[in-house]
């Protein structure tokens, strides 16, 4: 038994060393998913790691309260690199900039604002947003709300004005937005947070999608090398040693699992630390990762059982990984998929993993992902079991 464990580790370590030496595994297992998650999050609508916008500020008041708004929260936005803030002399100019898209939104501080606040009278701030830049306008609104809530004893209302180039603004949208602005019961609820949440959840979705897509490529390295070693003759040489075919298989499967866990683990950790993804409860995420890697390794082993050589296995793995990823919602969320596809997706590890991450990201604990864990484990054991049966003949064929 100890000898078997020793042999399994010896085989796995040699393989891992080779994988570290030749960079292709690292690129496929770590660099590619991380880079793609980042790119998607920047390119696709809805979320941006590097959210950046531009505001025009029209200070018609010039008083101390107005200055504190400009030098306080708005300056902070600029400093944080979230927005360029440009001062403008009059509202018409700012409105024109928003209309032609040069500015995402304009913030207008009306004349008499400071006086009104000083006298305890109601005061109003105005946000002019392009209809197609609602996120930017939303950020502006939330910043102003935050400021307003800090202005004690004064009711500062924030009027939102929508402009759009050419077509008339959608009245329903205006009504909704202004209603929202007016109906905010507690100005302290910062839309700022909600925006960050949305960005984070998009980031998490892309990170998780790419992690589960690429774990198939990472996991294939271990088991596919069975075919390469068979061709090179080193497999036969290993089997001539006092070890069984199962020991060699175990060594290779272990490599797949280690590479898979490292790949997904680094993507999860990296996207959390560097681009603001929020995966949720670390223990539950770890469990989800391990079971997903199990499923990916099992499927990779099954593919190896059907391939003649390592090139064929690589091609087959790519086809299987991409098909499962599309079906499983790695490229677009399953909530947008037609009914039949959503059902089909339940046969993919991707769907179960993404569903699990989604639950965890919104704050659920490990108990929320039990079904995902169970299904992923079952997929892993099922495909892995079939794969082992076939792989035995791979190992013993010359």
């Amino acid at each position, binding site marked *: 038994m100890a000898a078997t464990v020793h042999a399994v580790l010896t085989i796995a370590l040699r393989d891992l060393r080779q994988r570290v030496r030749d960079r292709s595994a690292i690129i496929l297992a770590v660099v590619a998913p991380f880079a793609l998650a980042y790119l998607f999050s920047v390119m696709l609508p809805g979320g941006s790691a590097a959210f950046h916008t531009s505001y025009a500020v029209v200070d018609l008041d010039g008083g101390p309260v107005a200055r504190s708004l400009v030098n306080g929260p708005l300056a902070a936005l600029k400093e944080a690199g979230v927005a360029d803030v440009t001062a403008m002399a009059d509202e018409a100019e700012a409105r024109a900039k928003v209309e032609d898209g040069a500015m995402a939104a304009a913030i207008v501080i009306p004349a008499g604002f400071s006086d009104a606040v000083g006298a305890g009278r109601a005061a109003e701030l105005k946000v002019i947003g392009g209809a197609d830049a609602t996120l930017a306008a939303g950020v502006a609104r939330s910043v102003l709300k935050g400021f307003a809530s800090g202005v004690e004893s004064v009711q500062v209302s924030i009027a939102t004005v929508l402009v759009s180039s050419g077509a008339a603004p959608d009245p329903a949208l205006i009504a909704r937005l202004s209603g929202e602005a007016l109906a905010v019961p507690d100005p302290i609820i910062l839309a700022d947070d909600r925006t960050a949440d949305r960005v984070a959840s998009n980031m998490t979705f892309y990170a998780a999608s790419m992690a589960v897509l690429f774990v198939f490529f990472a996991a294939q390295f271990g088991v596919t090398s069975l075919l390469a070693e068979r061709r090179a*003759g080193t497999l036969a040489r290993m089997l001539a*040693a*006092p070890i069984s075919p199962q020991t060699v298989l175990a060594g290779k499967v272990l490599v797949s699992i280690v590479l898979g866990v490292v790949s997904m683990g680094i993507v999860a950790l990296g996207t959390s630390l560097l681009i603001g993804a929020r995966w949720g409860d670390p223990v539950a995420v770890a469990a989800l990762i391990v079971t997903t890697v199990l499923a990916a390794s099992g499927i990779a082993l099954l593919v190896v059982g059907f391939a003649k050589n390592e090139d064929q296995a690589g091609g087959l793995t790519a086809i299987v990984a991409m098909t499962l990823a599309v079906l499983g919602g790695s490229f677009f969320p399953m909530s947008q998929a037609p009914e039949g596809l959503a059902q089909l997706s339940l046969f993919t590890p991707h769907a179960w993993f993404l569903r699990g991450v989604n639950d965890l990201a919104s704050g659920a604990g490990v108990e929320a992902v039990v079904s995902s864990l169970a299904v992923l484990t079952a997929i892993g054991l099922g495909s892995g079991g079939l794969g082992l049966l076939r792989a035995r003949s791979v190992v013993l064929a010359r």
Partner: protein
Amino acid sequence: MPTPVLDCRDLRKRFGSRTAVDGVSFSVAAGETYGLLGPNGAGKTTTISMICGLLGRDGGEVVVDGRPIDVGSTDAKAAIGYVPQDLAIYPDLSARENLRFFGRLQRLSGRVLETRVGEVLELIALSERADDRTSEFSGGMKRRLNIGIGLLHRPRLLVLDEPTVGVDPQSRNAILSSVADLGSEGLAILYTTHYMEEAERLCDRIGIIDEGRIRAEGTRRELVGLIGEKDRVTLVAGGSLGPAARALASVERVQEATATDGRIELVVEEARSLLPRILQEAAAAGAVVRSVEVVEPDLEAVFLHLTGKALRD
């Protein structure tokens, strides 16, 4: 006869409709070198793969060092040192790392492993290059390492599958003499080749294999004797050749003696042992012998006789 180190009986293997090995039986004793001599496709590698537990068989039995060998065997395989026909080494590892890896699989570790790796490197004359990647090695160096890996764990049976294929004559000589040394140290060696000279030089006994069957087996002499061919001796000589030929013809085991211009041609049984007597008789009959050539029938001829085809195509 002591119990053989390797005993295989009635081995059979088919690949689809092709029968690769068709009832092969032989055994190899400690200190004995057994050659499987046969052309390409004869079934040598298939036989070896079954002996080493690398390939499932359709029939037959293999016993090594008293223990049966099967594809699932573990401990029993420790008695075998396997040197595959095609180089089986990792190009991205150094010679030392290759030896260490396979040594660990042979359950060596720690100091024992390091010492043994050093010894084997010495034996295969690669100590100088031990830490170079094997992808930078010459063909002969790779061959030597390929053999060294099979020796690491001091097996009782060394199985060499055409270890000199594609090797330059010098390296080949070195390989052959180290195999001969290993044999004299008591290792049982199974050696496959399609080079007649290697089988003749190294092997105590030879099995001639063709189309999955051993056609004949024995020492070189036994095999040659099997086809009843005699040695041919040519004496290049001056003096009275006719009387000398007549005198020689009456010597026991000399079957023919004819004088032609400047030489006497003899057909002799076991010429080497009779040579002093032949020279003596020739001199006594007045011939002045300037040179002697002995041509013994070789395994090539035996193979041709047994199979109707040449050993090498």
